[in-house]
């Protein structure tokens, strides 16, 4: 045997797959060839036959099965001529092709049992196939008569004058090599060796798998109940049995889940083609790097991430990577790199799509967002770079200067995010100008059974998916009272120096608040790039839960993601964390959280000089010193009326007064004061305005970690300054508000 053994220990995965696929293809080929004989002009049939042989040829070349490649190569030549109409299909040719199929089958059998092609003769069939290519022979009508009996059971001998019968003979015993193996192995091993690859794996109806999964879900629930009841008894035998049940159910669950797992390569495998075509279309040369293609996830999820991933890849090539000349000018290799990475992390699958392109320019994104009317200039000026980059996920956003047929229609990233969030995943984006962009998609391993935190509220049980859970905070006694601060009416908790907006579960559910809370349980949750604290009455335990959809009567309640049955046999509703975040807080929380993560990640915020003043009972306001021209004090008698506005004569002009406290709804502590403390503000070329505050406290220089809690017209948000929650005044917006009135 001249062939080297390709596989040291058994067949490796690629060859295994190749064999399974090829066997199936060959069966199909037999049928197709026979059908083809009846309708020799059928282009679809010819094309399908051609494709099959082509595939086998390609893969065998790749796996270095030279004989297989040789014989399929000639076969392919014949088929391509048939397909192109240069050759007409005669029964003779059909027979030769069928012989080729048999030879291929024999080769595959040999590869399967021994790992090598063996000494199966392919020359005869190759010659016969080559013979078909001889232009004169098959095209003349004469052979037609000659082959008429070809339909008879024994055609081989008749048609092919030369070595045709030979290969057939060789093919007949498909496993002449098996005895070689059997010599030094037991009967059992021999049996295994003979067991064809096709026999060791079967195709299973996906519906059946889904049904199995559902039943395992039931079993897990029942197991949970049994374990709970048995835990309360003293019966040792019963406890032992329940432990066994517990173990088996877990293993069964893992096993069934595994049957539904497929490598992400199923989705990735077609991306090289997409990348190549797109690159050519955009005039960019792209190198595709894939890491972790064997990473597995549930097939339903695989299906769900297919489109978003393709979209991200398209985006990266179309928007991310620059044209080669631009890259060379920037000192980068002309060829752009698109990297796909997949890995498991913390019970989730992470898929990254990264490019080394131009990165996202916040300025451009901001300009585009304003142009598209998504945000106002005012809002943008208050956003962090990260928040601005996040704007690309807003519906209706598009940075492509022109609408190409690849992307730039403004439907894209928002759909990506929506689709990923639909399956309980998250999307975030990291970008550096000139260096590239990476989009990170996190998805759960499976949707059917998830770990959850079980909490109690007003006697009922609710489940919170652990994927959303960050940490638990419990405030007891004094802390439960004093720990909660309010920013413009919104409750917040200071979690390690950053403000965590709080949402009360009872309020969200429309339930009455408990009479008194001796302790406060805060479940810190993340959803949609948002952090917030959900205040619940009671934290019970964690459980594996089986997610059930809600019936149509309650499907639309966005607070709930589904229902489940807990260990005690009761039905519990599963909270939809993203839904609650949206319902409770709209944009506020999102903005806060984005700022919080920003401040956590990069403590680069510069210190700002701020004027601290007081209004109302004890509300602290901070004004950036850049907005302050002078500080003045006027006696109340100096105040006069001009129209509806209070004015004072100031430096030969009228100074319009703005009462900040009442304007912001914070009231004024000293309505009957004799003097007004006034902050004079002058905005560019506008007339000066006097902001009346109750008292001026301090000028400080501090790093401002702005939180959007309490943000509204005139207030940029709030921050912890001098260890106290202080609202930051957006002076231009505040003044603008008074001018409209």
């Amino acid at each position, binding site marked *: 045997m001249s062939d080297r053994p390709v596989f040291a220990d058994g067949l490796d995965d690629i060859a295994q797959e190749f064999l399974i696929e090829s066997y199936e293809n060959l069966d199909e080929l037999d049928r197709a060839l026979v059908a083809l004989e009846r309708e020799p002009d059928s282009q679809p049939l010819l094309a399908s036959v051609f494709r099959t042989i082509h595939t086998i040829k390609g893969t065998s070349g790749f796996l270095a099965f030279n004989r297989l490649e040789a014989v399929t190569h000639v076969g392919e030549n014949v088929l391509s001529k048939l397909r192109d109409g240069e050759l007409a299909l005669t029964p003779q040719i059909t027979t030769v092709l069928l012989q080729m199929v048999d030879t291929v089958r024999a080769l595959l059998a040999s590869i399967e049992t021994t790992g090598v092609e063996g000494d199966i003769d392919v020359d005869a069939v190759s010659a016969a196939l080559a013979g078909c290519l001889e232009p004169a022979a098959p095209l003349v009508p004469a052979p037609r008569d000659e082959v008429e009996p070809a339909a008879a059971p024994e055609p081989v001998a008749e048609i092919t004058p030369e070595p045709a019968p030979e290969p057939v003979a060789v093919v007949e015993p498909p496993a002449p090599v098996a005895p070689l193996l059997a010599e030094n192995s037991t009967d059992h091993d021999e049996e295994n060796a003979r067991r064809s690859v096709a026999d060791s794996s079967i195709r299973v109806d996906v519906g059946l798998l889904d049904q199995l999964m559902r039943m395992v879900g*039931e079993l897990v*629930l*029942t197991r949970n109940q049994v374990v709970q009841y048995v835990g309360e008894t003293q019966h040792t035998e019963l406890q032992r049995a329940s432990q066994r049940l517990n173990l088996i159910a877990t293993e069964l669950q893992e096993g069934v889940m595994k049957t539904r797992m497929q490598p992400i390569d199923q989705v990735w495998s077609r991306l090289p083609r997409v990348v190549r075509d797109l690159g050519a279309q955009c005039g960019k040369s792209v190198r595709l790097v894939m890491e972790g293609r064997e990473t597995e996830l549930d097939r339903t999820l695989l299906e769900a991430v297919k489109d978003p991933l393709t979209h991200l890849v398209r985006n990266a090539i179309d928007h991310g990577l620059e044209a080669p000349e631009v890259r060379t000018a920037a000192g980068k290799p002309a060829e752009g790199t698109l990297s796909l990475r997949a890995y498991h992390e913390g019970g989730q699958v992470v898929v990254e799509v990264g490019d080394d392109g131009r990165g996202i320019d916040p300025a451009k994104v901001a300009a585009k967002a304003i142009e598209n009317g998504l945000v106002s200039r005012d809002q943008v000026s208050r956003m962090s770079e990260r928040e601005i980059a996040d704007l690309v996920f807003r519906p209706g956003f598009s940075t492509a200067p022109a609408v190409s047929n690849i992307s730039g229609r403004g439907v894209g990233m928002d759909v990506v995010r929506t689709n990923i969030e639909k399956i309980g995943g998250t999307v975030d984006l990291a970008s550096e100008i000139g260096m590239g962009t990476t989009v990170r998609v996190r998805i759960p391993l499976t949707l059917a059974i998830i770990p959850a935190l079980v909490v109690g509220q007003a006697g*009922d*049980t609710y489940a919170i998916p652990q994927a959303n859970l960050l940490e638990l905070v419990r405030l007891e006694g004094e802390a439960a009272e004093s720990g909660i601060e309010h920013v413009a009416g919104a409750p917040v908790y200071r979690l390690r120096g950053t403000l965590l907006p709080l949402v009360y579960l009872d309020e969200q*559910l*429309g*339930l009455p608040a408990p009479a008194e809370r001796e302790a406060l349980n805060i479940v810190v949750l993340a959803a949609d790039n948002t952090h917030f604290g959900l205040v619940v009455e009671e934290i019970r335990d964690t459980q594996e839960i089986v997610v*059930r959809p*809600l*019936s*149509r*009567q*309650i499907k639309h*309640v966005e*607070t*709930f993601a589904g*229902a*489940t*049955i807990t260990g005690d*046999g*009761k*039905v*519990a*509703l599963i909270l939809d964390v993203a839904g609650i975040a949206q319902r409770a807080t709209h944009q506020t929380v999102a903005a806060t959280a984005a700022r919080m993560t920003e401040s956590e990640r990069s403590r680069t915020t510069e210190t700002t000089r701020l004027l601290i003043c007081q209004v109302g009972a004890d509300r602290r306001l901070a004004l950036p010193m850049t907005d302050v021209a002078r500080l003045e004090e006027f006696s109340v008698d100096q105040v006069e009326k001009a129209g509806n506005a209070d004015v004072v004569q100031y430096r030969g002009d009228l100074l319009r007064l703005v009462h900040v406290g009442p304007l912001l709804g914070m009231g004024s502590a000293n309505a009957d004061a004799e003097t007004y403390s006034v902050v004079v503000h002058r905005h560019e070329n506008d007339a000066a305005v006097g902001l009346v505050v109750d008292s001026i406290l301090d000028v400080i220089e501090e790093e401002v970690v702005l939180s959007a809690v309490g943000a509204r017209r005139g207030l940029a948000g709030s921050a912890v300054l001098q260890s106290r929650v202080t609202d930051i005044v957006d002076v231009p917006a505040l003044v603008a508000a008074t001018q409209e009135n």
Partner: protein
Amino acid sequence: MNQPRQLCTFTVDDLYLGVDVMEVQEVIRYQEMTAVPLAPEVVRGLINLRGQIVTALDLRRMLNLPPLEGDELPTNVVIRDGADEAVSLLVDQIGDVVDTDPADFEPPPPTLSGPARELVLGAYKLPHTLLLVLDTERVQNSQRPAAARV
């Protein structure tokens, strides 16, 4: 309505109602249930029916009737729809299975008004009483948002 049918009958307040036995999965006594905050008013809660989560719909609320008085507990009539989704109808008392004659069937009497009119397909004239046939599809889609409770 032109086939003789068997109806599973029950009462809600003074109404004598029925649904086709083919639609009924089972009849079970009152089950403890989990309330669904924010849900439409007709949804009384979710019950665990041997591992299956079933939404219980309160027919009294759906028909704008006062709640059941005293300690009496409603009975679950679990029906299964074409989409294989099971819901339970909470009724006061379960009755017999009644054989009906299509000749006795009539569309809802004009005197029938209010929510019952929307939910009833028609009536069978039985010797002593009228048996109203519920339109289960409509019953399941009956959405009376709990606007007042939020």
